[in-house]
């Protein structure tokens, strides 16, 4: 996020695209809901589903799944045509405007309306409202990123924000809410194949030298494999062993059968988990980790805020904190520079090697946490990014053309499947909460009344959902919150493993799977 959650209270307009915060990020959603209800802010929602925010929105753009780029290009077309763009910001802070202009020129309202299904008048309303509101904040989530054109989608949101000067200011910005509690932190810490902690590139020789010196070993300078590449490599027999820490790709990654094949193929799989996950079942060894309540440490939230996690109880049974287990392995493999006594020591080592975290330590975050970048212990943290300049200096407009989803409904697979989270569940752990699981014990796929009539099903009855990759049975919830021709499912239920259906296609840059669009058949199950 370029801005902070606190900043949600300062904006006069939310433009929420590809995000369902009242369910997936409830406290972010609550801030939007209360601001809109009190009349403080207006709201534009772009979403194929009539999500809760769409019902509260001043303007709801019900675009077809996978048409975010045409939509955003179309809005930019109108903004430029009507001269509502921020010329001063564009001149001073950006480059590449002419190329962008040339591209969006082609996205006329009529054409965009045709492509997205959004009426022209709403395109005009939304474009004008977003461009002319001084404090306008764009929020997105996985509805933008989980496409094969996810990176282009993200760039498009940056384009429209820069075009209107809605960046680097209070109450503005481009604000992706991160899906998982510490997905920000895992990236920050270098759990990525291309960077060390603090986004320091593994290919940079100076960085490599710094870490080699600190860690006392020779380090590899070529990029590692991303998860989809790992799975492919495993299926191909090139990858022999995998160490899986607190993840359940069988349930949560696209095309589950492909993942299962990969896990089966490997010689040795270690799972470090707190529950017997679908993935752990494929492991040779399972190491019982401790939950968040049983260990000290830190999480980094979507707003780049590093906050304390505190040990409240002793680890359950014979489980152990994850850091302890990993360090113990290192020791047993003959490495002696991971003999930490506490998470605080780990943090301090990390911070000493990572400039953007250098100013953060446990004492400083005892009460409210700190938002990185925070280069020195005097630095107050950074609630708003890019106030003076962008990471690369000038913000670069990137002219982007539409990329249709990898797989679209056809005669054989006539329905479009889209997936996401629901309020009462979070990936996997919530299924082990007695109240939450009792409240929402099973999948309830959303289908439109017209489709339900065609299929002859009522709410509570079951359908079989089949894609080219797999087939699952689910109960349905008949509702006009989804558009006709679409089925929407969550991925929380191992009893209804939705990701057996999703498409094995990824954004070429980010390697994010296209969870939001797949083609399926539906049939009633008696």
């Amino acid at each position: 996020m370029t801005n902070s959650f606190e900043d949600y209270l300062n904006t006069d307009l939310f433009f929420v695209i590809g995000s369902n915060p009242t369910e997936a990020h409830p406290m972010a959603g609550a801030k939007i809901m209360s601001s809109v209800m009190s009349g403080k802010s207006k709201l534009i929602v772009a979403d194929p589903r009539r999500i809760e925010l769409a019902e509260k929105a001043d303007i709801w753009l019900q675009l077809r799944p996978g048409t975010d780029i045409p939509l955003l290009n179309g809005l930019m077309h109108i903004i430029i045509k009507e001269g509502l763009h921020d010329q001063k910001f564009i001149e001073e802070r950006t480059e590449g405007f002419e190329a962008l202009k040339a591209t969006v020129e082609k996205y006329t309202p009529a054409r965009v309306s045709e492509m997205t299904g959004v009426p022209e008048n709403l395109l005009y309303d939304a474009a004008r409202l977003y461009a002319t509101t001084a404090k306008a904040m764009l929020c997105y989530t996985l509805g933008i990123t989980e496409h094969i054109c996810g990176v282009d989608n993200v760039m498009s949101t940056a384009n429209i924000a820069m075009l209107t000067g809605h960046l680097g200011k209070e109450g503005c910005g481009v604000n992706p809410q991160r899906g998982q509690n510490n997905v920000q932190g895992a990236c920050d810490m270098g759990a990525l194949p291309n960077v060390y902690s603090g986004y320091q590139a593994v290919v940079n020789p100076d960085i490599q030298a710094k870490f080699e010196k600190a860690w006392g070993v020779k380090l590899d300078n070529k990029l590692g494999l991303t998860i989809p590449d790992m799975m492919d490599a495993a299926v191909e027999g090139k990858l022999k062993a995998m160490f899986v820490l607190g993840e359940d790709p069988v349930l949560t990654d696209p095309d589950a059968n492909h993942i299962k094949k990969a896990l089966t193929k490997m010689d040795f799989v270690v799972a470090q988990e707190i529950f017997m996950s679908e993935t752990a079942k494929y492991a040779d060894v399972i190491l019982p980790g401790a939950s968040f309540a049983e260990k000290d440490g830190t999480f980094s939230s979507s707003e780049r805020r590093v906050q304390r996690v505190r040990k409240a109880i002793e680890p359950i049974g014979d489980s152990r904190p994850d850091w302890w287990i990993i360090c113990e392995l290192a020791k047993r493999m003959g490495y002696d520079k991971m003999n930490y006594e506490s998470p605080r020591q780990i943090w301090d080592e990390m911070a000493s090697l990572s400039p953007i975290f250098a100013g953060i330590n446990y004492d400083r975050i005892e009460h409210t946490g700190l938002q990185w970048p925070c280069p020195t212990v005097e630095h107050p943290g950074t609630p708003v990014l890019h106030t003076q300049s962008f990471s690369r200096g000038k913000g670069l407009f990137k002219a982007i053309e539409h990329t249709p989803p990898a797989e679209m409904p056809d005669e054989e697979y006539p329905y479009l499947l889209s997936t996401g989270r629901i309020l009462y569940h979070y990936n996997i752990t919530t299924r082990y909460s007695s109240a939450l699981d009792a409240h929402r014990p099973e999948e309830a796929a959303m289908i439109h009344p017209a489709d339900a009539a065609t299929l002859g099903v009522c709410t509570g009855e079951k359908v079989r959902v089949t894609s080219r990759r797999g087939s699952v049975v689910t109960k349905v919830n008949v509702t006009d919150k989804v558009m006709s021709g679409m089925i929407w499912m969550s991925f929380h239920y191992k009893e209804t493993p939705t990701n057996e259906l999703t498409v094995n296609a990824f954004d070429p840059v980010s390697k994010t799977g296209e969870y939001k669009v797949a083609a399926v058949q539906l049939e009633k199950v008696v």
Partner: protein
Amino acid sequence: MPTVTLTIDGQQVTVPKGTTVLEAAWKAGSFVPTFCHDPELTKPGACRICVVEIKGARNLPASCVTAAAEGMIVETASPAVIDARKTILELMLDNHPEDCLTCHQAGDCKLQDYAYFYNVKPGAFGGECKNYEIEDDNLFIVRNMNKCILCGKCLRACEEKQGRAVIDFAYRGFRTKVATALDKPLADSVCVSCGTCVSVCPTGALTEKAMLGSARKWEVQKVRTTCPFCGVGCNFDLNVKGGKVIGVTSNAAAPANGRDLCVKGRFGTDYVHSPKRLTKPLIKKNGEFVESTWDEALDLVASKFGEIKTKFGSDSIAALSSARCTNEDNYVMQKFMRAVIGTNNVDHCART
């Protein structure tokens, strides 16, 4: 910033213009009780427990909604004030069950505290007492509207903090009640069980179902931490008794969320004590998982990784780190892969 100076209980106090008499009194160290006042919510001035005497005023104004003014002379504990407060407490107690002995909120209840402080006992006037059915048919919140003193903080929090307005005042006068649309149980309303109402309730009218009967308020140890669900980064207090997490309560100092939480954060952390937790290292032998010691399991993993690394090279091993584990866990994982295994094959599901 312009200031005003006023006299509270004989003491001069200077506060910024716009400060309420209540805030000024607190600043001056005077005790003024409150029920409906909440610094984060709009101010209805409804419960009247915070009345004070202001020289020249016709009545006893509610200090929470009276702006401090230059030269004001305020008494927060004059006989008239004390008698008015006692009367208000008597009126509340006469329309409230007398079950402090078994009330979950005992020890953390403003009504109880003030009744004690002012030595007010139930039964001053007697008469009709509300008699609603206790609502415990949802999984998260128990509503005992007989204990409600109609301060309205719950409905203001629901509207102003959560943007939902699931509840509002219904009916009127003595029959006034906080109700959902059509006065249905929460389970049949649009409530999403975030429990923000529970966090602001000054009495035992709203309680977390899972915590009922689990501990007296004074037995609970509170440990502030960060929520393990979603990326907003809410903070809350884990409530611990006897080495067990019994539930979650809000912590107003939380930067991203204040006292507000969602249903998962407030009611979902019981997974920690799920009987399905893995508690022993397991080694798959002949297709079955068999419990082992840490030494056996760790040694096995270390030797297997060592073998594979030797045989197929560092890049034949990969790790999935975790977006649900701590920063420290992730740091040691990537360090382990890079420094010990010798590969950059480390990733996590950064994209979900």
